[in-house]
């Protein structure tokens, strides 16, 4: 047994309102720089939809993640080490996404709005942040937000192809959900495994996956390797960048920026203890539908005295063990089994999990008999084959039984709490059917619906006082070599001449006009 601790996240999709606050705060913190304009370490996509980059779930096209080779062993879909060398993939990576798969970042030509009075009303044309040329916008981040224009693109959603159904796009029959996505900080991270320079690594103390900017040589295999397409390439520094799980905040015991600012309070952060020796065999499970359960087996019970002793032996700090014992993640994923990994069939053992939303079912069900007979929700779950299949294709590799069990549980919890707050009778034996008790249903309700800050985030401070050399980290900001990290443009022209720095008044004037802020 090799015990390791992993900081992980659960997102309660039922409560995500698709406001994109998480994406915007993340962007302002991490990717607000030249070269990083198109990067969204966190993005929220509307499902069904093609996502960002377009069709990222189509691994026949992007060839990310792992598959089993003929001997039943793990192999990167993009090719083994030798295959990459033999085929000269280092000169040209055939599977790498292109900028247009994301989108070409643009701004608007605001200057013309302030020009002297003219006969016609001035317009601010879109111009590329990459080339400065005018652009004809055809695609952008969240182009299909809230199913906008989905009649054009929705059928390209790889999940829909997988469950082999026509999804109706007319308003009455449509279902919709939001899927906020960030790096999964996988236990079996293919991005790390693809990196030829050894620049990508998992932190031993908390499992956060990072790119060492000093070691990255820009070979771009990580971009292909990650099936979630969550490693990006900075066209200015020519290095890979990815979600850092806001490690400077985590080290201080604070939640990530996306979680801290989440309007719906849907995000939970906590610690999971796992056995690193079991990861490989679990990821080699031949049956895709079982991968979710195999991943559960990798997690260790933090209340088991043997596990605690072994963890202490392995040098895991007591604070970390205590956090694991109070972990909201462990509660939702392992004890209540209401959270699931995103696309376990990629065999990456992702560590950002999702509570499936009841809302697609509720939408359908609400108009019908819901007031008079709320229990009709259970047959409704069974009846709503397409949303359930869709969720299963997203979260369990197609295993609908476990998804349904979680939905029943969530629905039952609602019914119970509704009866309780309304002072109605409720036959508590019904809770048994979904493997709940009155106490646990109440606790689950507190965790999911009330979602207090201290219940959502149980994060131990890192013990930097034990680290050998923290002096070397003094004053570092992470992306020193990024050449223009701040708002003020110190972009250089081709001859290395710094373009004149903007004053703060100029930045103010540029960003604030007519009472409206824009970024």
């Amino acid at each position, binding site marked *: 047994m090799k015990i390791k601790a992993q900081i992980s996240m659960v997102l309660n999709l039922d409560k995500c309102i698709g406001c994109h606050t998480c994406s915007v705060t993340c962007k302002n913190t991490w990717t607000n720089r030249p070269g990083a304009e198109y990067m969204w370490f966190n993005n929220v996509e509307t499902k069904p939809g093609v996502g960002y980059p377009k069709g990222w779930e189509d691994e026949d096209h992007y060839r990310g993640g792992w598959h089993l080779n003929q001997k039943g062993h793990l192999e990167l879909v993009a090719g083994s*080490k*030798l295959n990459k*060398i033999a085929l*000269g993939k*280092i*000169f*040209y*990576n*055939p599977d*790498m*996404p*292109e*900028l247009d798969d994301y989108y*070409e970042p643009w701004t608007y030509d605001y200057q013309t709005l302030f020009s002297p009075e003219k006969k016609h009303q001035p317009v601010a044309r879109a111009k590329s942040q*990459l*080339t*400065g*040329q005018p652009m004809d916008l055809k695609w952008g981040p969240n182009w299909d937000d809230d199913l906008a224009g989905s009649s054009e693109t929705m059928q390209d959603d790889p999940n829909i192809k997988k469950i082999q159904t026509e999804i109706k796009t007319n308003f009455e029959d449509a279902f919709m959900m939001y899927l906020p996505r960030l790096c999964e900080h996988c236990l*079996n*991270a293919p991005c*790390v*495994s693809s*990196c*030829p*320079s*050894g620049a*990508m*690594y*998992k*932190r*031993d*103390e908390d499992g956060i996956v990072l790119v060492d*900017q*000093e*070691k*990255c*040589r*820009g*070979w*771009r295999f990580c971009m292909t390797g990650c099936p979630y397409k969550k490693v990006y*390439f900075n*066209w*200015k*520094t*020519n*290095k890979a960048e990815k979600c850092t799980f806001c490690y400077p905040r985590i080290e201080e015991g604070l939640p990530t920026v996306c979680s801290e600012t989440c309007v719906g309070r849907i995000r939970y952060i906590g610690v999971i203890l796992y056995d690193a020796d079991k990861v490989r065999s679990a990821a080699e499970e031949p049956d895709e539908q079982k991968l979710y359960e195999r991943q559960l087996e990798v997690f260790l019970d933090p209340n088991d005295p043997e596990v605690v002793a072994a963890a202490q032996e392995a*040098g895991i700090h007591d604070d970390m063990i205590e956090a694991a014992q109070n972990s909201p993640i462990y509660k939702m994923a392992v004890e209540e089994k209401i959270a699931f990994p995103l696309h376990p069939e990629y065999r990456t053992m992702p560590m950002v999990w999702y509570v499936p939303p009841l809302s697609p079912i509720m939408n359908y069900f609400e108009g019908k008999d819901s007031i008079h007979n709320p229990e009709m929700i259970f047959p409704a779950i069974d009846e709503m084959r397409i949303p359930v299949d869709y969720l299963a294709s997203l979260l369990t590799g197609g295993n609908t039984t476990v998804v349904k069990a979680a939905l029943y549980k969530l629905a039952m919890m609602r019914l119970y709490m509704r009866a309780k707050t309304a002072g109605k009778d409720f036959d508590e034996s019904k809770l048994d059917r979904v493997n709940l008790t009155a106490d646990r249903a109440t606790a689950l309700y507190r965790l999911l619906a009330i979602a207090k800050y201290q219940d959502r985030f149980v994060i131990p401070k890192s013990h*930097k006082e*034990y*680290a*050998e*050399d923290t002096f070397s980290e003094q004053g570092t900001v992470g992306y*020193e*070599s990024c050449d223009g990290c701040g708002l003020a443009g110190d972009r250089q022209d*081709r*001859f*290395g001449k710094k373009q004149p720095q903007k004053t703060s008044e100029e930045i103010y004037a540029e960003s604030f006009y007519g009472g409206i802020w824009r970024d």
Partner: protein
Amino acid sequence: MAHPVQWFIWTVYPYLMLGSFIFGTIIRFAFYPASVTAKSSELLEKRRLMRGSIFFHVGIIMVFFGHIVGIFIPKVWTDALGIPNEVYHMFALVAGGLGGLAALIGMLILTYRRFSDVRVHMTSTLSDLIVNVSLLIIIILGLSATFIVSATQPEFNYRENLSIWGRQLFYFRPNYLLMLNVPLLFKAHVFFGLAIFGFFPYTRLVHAFALPIRYIKRRYLVYRKRPQL
């Protein structure tokens, strides 16, 4: 010294360039390790990069090994093995020609791409443009030196002068007189080549030293730990 300019070019200049090469490489890796990258623009344009990059790299690697053989294997060795001069030259012409041609095709595509693709062009630095053009020039010079000279001056054998001078550089006794009667195309090729060595470490070319050989034997997952007290 009857030819001060020639003396300078074939005795001093090579060491200036090689010195700059070694100095720059050390400085770059020791003090600016974060700046060493393959500087890929594949994100911005993919199709032409595929053809250009594969042709160029495969070609240039062949040509590189060809130059090593040409310079470091003395004629007496191949003579001793009983390899006739004609056979050697036929082989060098065919292998070198193929490699050079591949590199040329690749570089033409890449240079065209760098100047015509708006995204790639607008995000290129001056150094990228210089590198592109100089590689194109050196390849054209190399190919024309090989083919034009072997057609017009078949009696010229670079292994009897140029290669010897090349080896002499490595034991610090270059005899510039050996270079005097070398045809101009060859001279220009060597001159430009040395210049490229000179600016190599300060440009994107430095990624050739970042070849990730260790990956082949590395385990897949990498964990890193802060050293603990």
